[in-house]
């Protein structure tokens, strides 16, 4: 399925949409397509809303944001989100915040068919005061009070991966983020991959599969769809883009011109890649470092 078709079909105004990938495999191409298609009133969910959600907020797609840590990793602030939160520009943005672990546990609960998940870390902090979804639960064995978060079932989860087969069996190596948990938590799952590979490739290494095809609604093949983040073994993070965004995002007008140039004015990811400065892809492509062989054995 094309990205445009997948977003058109599964992402609706007002939806709760989780876009995951912890620094690795961030679904930039999918987020850009959501912006391009003009979705509104989304509740966006992401452990680390970084550049992608700063762009989505600057573009006016979001009504609310659930997150764990709000920053441009290794660079600084997310000024578009700060503008929305601090000054309501371009529109007010409701926020609901967790620790990384708390949001992970919300995914875990939902993926596991549990209405809540117990954890530790919020007692004595001000977080439960500003988030009524942080509650307490009593251990039936020790009487201890633990923290608890509720399940979170996004309407749609979008995750990037290195490869999948046509049935949606999806393989990821390197940082795994919350990809598996959010996929099992969500009602619909869109997987965006660097490559669609024959089923035999996936089935030659079933332990590498993070997401089973049976829970995947769309597989989109788009090389470089995680740029400017990275895809382990395919390309490195384009740190220049993170630094550039730090300048762009300080001003709503510049943000909008950037979105026009890099999103609204482009038809798709192919056009985006063509617009990258010459040599970008060569510069970001790492040398080989193969995983080494493993034998599953042929059992007949």
């Amino acid at each position, binding site marked *: 399925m094309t990205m445009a078709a997948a977003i058109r079909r599964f992402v609706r105004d007002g939806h709760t949409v989780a876009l995951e990938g912890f620094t690795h495999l961030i679904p930039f191409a999918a987020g850009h397509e959501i912006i391009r298609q003009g979705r509104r009133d989304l509740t966006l969910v992401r452990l680390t809303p970084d550049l992608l959600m700063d762009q989505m907020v600057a573009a006016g797609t979001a009504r609310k944001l659930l997150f764990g840590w709000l920053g441009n990793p290794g660079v600084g602030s997310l000024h578009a989100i700060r503008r929305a939160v601090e000054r309501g520009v371009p529109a007010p943005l409701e926020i609901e915040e967790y620790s990384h672990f708390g949001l992970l546990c919300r995914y875990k609960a939902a993926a596991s068919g549990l209405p809540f998940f117990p954890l530790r870390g919020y007692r004595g902090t001000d977080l439960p005061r500003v988030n009524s979804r942080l509650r307490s639960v009593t251990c039936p064995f020790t009487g201890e009070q633990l923290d608890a978060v509720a399940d979170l079932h996004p309407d749609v989860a979008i995750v990037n991966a290195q490869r999948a087969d046509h049935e949606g069996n999806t393989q990821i190596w390197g940082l795994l983020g919350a990809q598996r948990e959010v996929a099992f938590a969500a009602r619909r799952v869109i997987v965006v991959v660097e490559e669609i590979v024959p089923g035999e490739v996936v089935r030659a290494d079933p332990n590498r599969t993070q997401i089973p095809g049976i829970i995947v609604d769309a597989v989109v093949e788009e090389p470089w769809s995680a740029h400017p983040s990275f895809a382990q073994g395919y390309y490195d993070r384009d740190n220049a883009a993170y630094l550039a965004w730090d300048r762009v995002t300080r001003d709503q007008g510049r943000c909008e011109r950037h979105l026009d140039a890099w999103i609204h004015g482009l038809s798709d990811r192919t056009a985006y890649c063509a617009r990258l400065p010459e040599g970008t892809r060569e510069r970001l492509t790492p040398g080989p470092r193969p995983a080494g062989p493993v034998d599953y*054995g042929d059992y007949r």
Partner: protein
Amino acid sequence: MSSAAAAEAPANRTEMMIHAAAREVRDGDAVFVGIGLPNLAVQLARRLHAPGAHLIYESGVFGARPARLPISIGDPCLVSGAAQVLPMAETFLYFLQGRRTDLGFLGAAQIDRFGNLNTTVVGDYDAPRVRLPGAGGAPDIAWNARRTVVILRQDRRKFVERLNFRTTVGWAEGGDSRERLGASGGGPVRVITDLGVYGFDAATREMLLETVHPGVTVEEIRAHVGWPLRTAPAVTTTPEPTPEASRLLREDIDPARIYLGPA
């Protein structure tokens, strides 16, 4: 006997069970499957009307394509060529409790009229006459799968008025009692034995005899049930397998008749 003649021989009762079980599998179903008869039934259904059915083994394998007949749910032939292997905990958490399972197959040593199952003990728990294997994956399959189907050979000591131990909940005490317990899955829909096939009354949730296998009478079945058995308004004969289904089961799926037994 030649292969052609073998394919035409009538199904024995084990084969009748497998064919009946295969008919419970719908195309696209995610099926939580044990070894033996349920495995054969799903393999058969995939070759007939349900090519898109997915097999999930509690050992952690999704989308297995075994090159031989597996001898346990952990056979390495289930792993080589599978779509995914998950840690066992995640298989239970995500596929079962996370409500991604459409159909689960269960066996039992005892069953009652509401489809509750005992696989724990015969006799008293603390001084058992027979110590059975226990729960395994059954309580969770029964609790969470959208539909469950129970397969067991039938006799009066198995179809009991009162279980010695309730390992696994079916329809609990009947009516809406399962729902009131808070079960997330759908409960048992069929019981398949070597004598016939049962459903459950939509209101009372009591087991109802629906079909008898060829050559079996309702009276014969009543003699193998430990409570006054109710029957569906019209008890018919379990359909015999088509020649194609019979051939697939005998020639492709279990050619050594490991599970099928003597023809």
